[in-house]
């Protein structure tokens, strides 16, 4: 086998390994961000996929079970609403009529089972956001896996 051929074959092997690595990794780690309307439109295709769903918590929809840890509510983007089921501790800022992002999968009967409710971070790094002062009286954040 000539030298050039050997280099080409070696290069192809490395390239194939890389493509496999990248493809496999992306399959595992990509999380799509969808709106309630997009989710409604593609109900079947979204089943079983890990998603991030963002919208507004519908006023009057928030119910808390007696165990204090189970929440049911609806997220809307104005045109569609998705029922959410969540067990855990939601972030401090989570309340009706405010924006929220949940992470999880769409389950049976079109209910989105959230494994986490994420605090909405501001888009920009600025220590002096206009906003309410945080209350040190009690604080229970959501499950954030990444750093702030």
């Amino acid at each position, binding site marked *: 086998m000539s030298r050039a051929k050997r280099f080409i074959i070696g290069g192809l092997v490395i390239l194939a390994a890389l493509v496999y690595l990248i493809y496999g990794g992306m399959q595992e780690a990509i999380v799509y961000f969808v709106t309630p309307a997009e989710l409604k439109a593609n109900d079947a295709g979204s089943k079983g996929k890990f998603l991030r769903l963002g919208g507004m918590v519908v006023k009057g929809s928030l119910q808390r079970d007696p165990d204090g840890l189970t929440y049911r509510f609806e997220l809307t983007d104005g045109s569609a609403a998705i029922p959410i089921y969540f067990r855990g501790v939601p972030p401090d800022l989570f309340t009706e009529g405010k924006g929220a992002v949940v992470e999880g999968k769409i389950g049976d009967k079109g209910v989105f089972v959230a494994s986490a409710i994420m605090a909405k971070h501001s888009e920009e790094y600025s*220590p002096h956001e206009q906003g309410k002062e945080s209350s040190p009286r*009690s604080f229970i954040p959501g499950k954030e896996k990444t750093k702030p």
Partner: protein
Amino acid sequence: MTAGVGYVSILLALICALGGIVAPILAHRTGNERYFAGARAAILGQFVLVTLAASALIYGLVSTDFSIKYVVNNTTRATPFYYRVTGLWGALEGSLMLWEWILIIFSGLVAWIYKDRHRELMPWVLMIFSIVSAFFLLVVAFASNPFETVFPVPLDGRGLNPLLEDANMMTHPPLLYTGFVGLTVPYAFAMAALIVGKLNDSWIVTTRRWTITAWFFLTLGNLVGAYWSYHVLGWGGYWAWDPVENAAFMPWLPATAFLHSIQVQERRHMLKVWNLSLIIIAFALTIFGTFLTRSGVLSSIHAFASGPVGILFLAFLAVILIGSFGLLAYRADHLKGQPQLDSMVSRESAFLLNNVVLVSALFTIFLGTIFPLISEAVTGSQLSVGAPYFNWVTAPLFLVLVFLMGVGPMIAWRRASLDNLKRNFLWPAVAALLIAVVLAVGWVRDFLPLLGFTLCAFVTATILFDTALAVRARRRIAGEGVFSALVTLARRNQRRYGGLVVHLGVVLIILGIAGSMSYSVEREATLGQGETLTVGPYKIQFQGLRASQQPTHFRVEGAFQVHNNGHDLGLLTPALKFFPGQQSPIGRAVYRSSFTQDLYLILSGFSEIEKNRATLRLLVRPLLAWMWLGGFVIVLGTLVAIWPPKKGGGRRDEG
């Protein structure tokens, strides 16, 4: 007044920079050597003026001159002196000012050190410096002016982001910028060599030490960043594959590849085009990183507010890539006729493979970082690429690298004989396999970490074995003791032994990463007063909440009495800090390190309603402390490598 002095200095420096660009071209056109002196004078002028401007900004910060907007945004009257100074890199405008300052210090050093050398290259080297400097001055003067004034003058400033008020944050950005800017030196020499068409190895030999130094600062900057993340951000990790971290890490990969492949060019005059490409990519990535983090295209804690800065950086990036690779193509005929690889089993091919792996790692990380941008631009759908992608993709690549770290320094050049392989690798391989068996029987049951630990053992064994053989030889020949034999060896071949020590440091870091990633334990529990949580050998008893008003914030801490196997580790008090004007509190995690594992406590919530109930998040991260230790070993190794050689004795390196 201060603002005026600073701003005028910047404008004058910009004029100097433009002069520094034009002078070498004029000299070349007219054949008048006097213009070459102009290039030097332009650098000197910029050095003085930019230093004046930076000093003005520091003076403004220290004297809390609130007529300057930047000072208002980054200090308060209550800010202590050192945090006023570090306010220089607390936000975008000052960071760019600092970058330009470090750049012009490097340029000045180069101009001064090579005053009488490289007469042909130097004007063009200085021209490249002036081009880069002109860009940064342009940005500082017109797109992100740190000397912008406010009227009426406010009574007090708003202060630094509290997360940045930490000793590590005082050093992390300057270290990183020094690393980034340091890469400009080999880049400038490479471009000068291309312009002149003198493409022998002299630009590489000259910039060798600069490259090692830049690499060193890049490494340290990234490590200190990781340490800051672990120490301050309070999430229990040190690396999140956040775009900001990737931006700082990406230039490190081609820089490391370059550091290795230039040895092949020095020895065997191969890989000329490759080396030029690597340094262009490394330099371009430093600009790309700034674009990524400072333009607001991605949002994260470091991504400062957006502005025209992004477009300018993107344009400059295009100029660099088109200009540099255009020049490379133009000189392509000068770069032909290189020696061929003799054998696949040789040091050249080990280094080549090392380069392929490093560049592959760069490509995968780059792709993962910009994929959300591409996706949003092309299909409009928003997505995020999580840390699992980066871990999955880089783990095998880095394991191959660790293996090559054992092979590369010991295998023979050109063609390794079976004898050479047996001599250098038989015993280290046996030792590594023995350790692997012991680990597999005793503790480590999973494939990937076992492979990682085994490869770490292999690299360590090759280095110890090789050094032991060399020491034995010296003892026999010169009758030296072990210690003086080691010193003689290191003195005779500083680059080799410095490099080996750096490799040992990298092994320790890999050990820390493999241990902490594979065997971390994470638990979350809500505890009432007096309740105890038991995790592994640790017993954590919750003693109660304490609240206090601090000068800058309100602090709530949980007191936890911690025992490790009955051994008292004392009272640990993770806290939440509530800053006025901030929406959510900032956690202050507390941890205890040991050689075997770290215990990391985070107060993740508390409630007043049920009185003294705290939600505690606890992490046990094995071997993590070895990472930071590895950093110190790298410092040591780099010092060995770049220590000025003895005059007259040993092999002298130019540059």
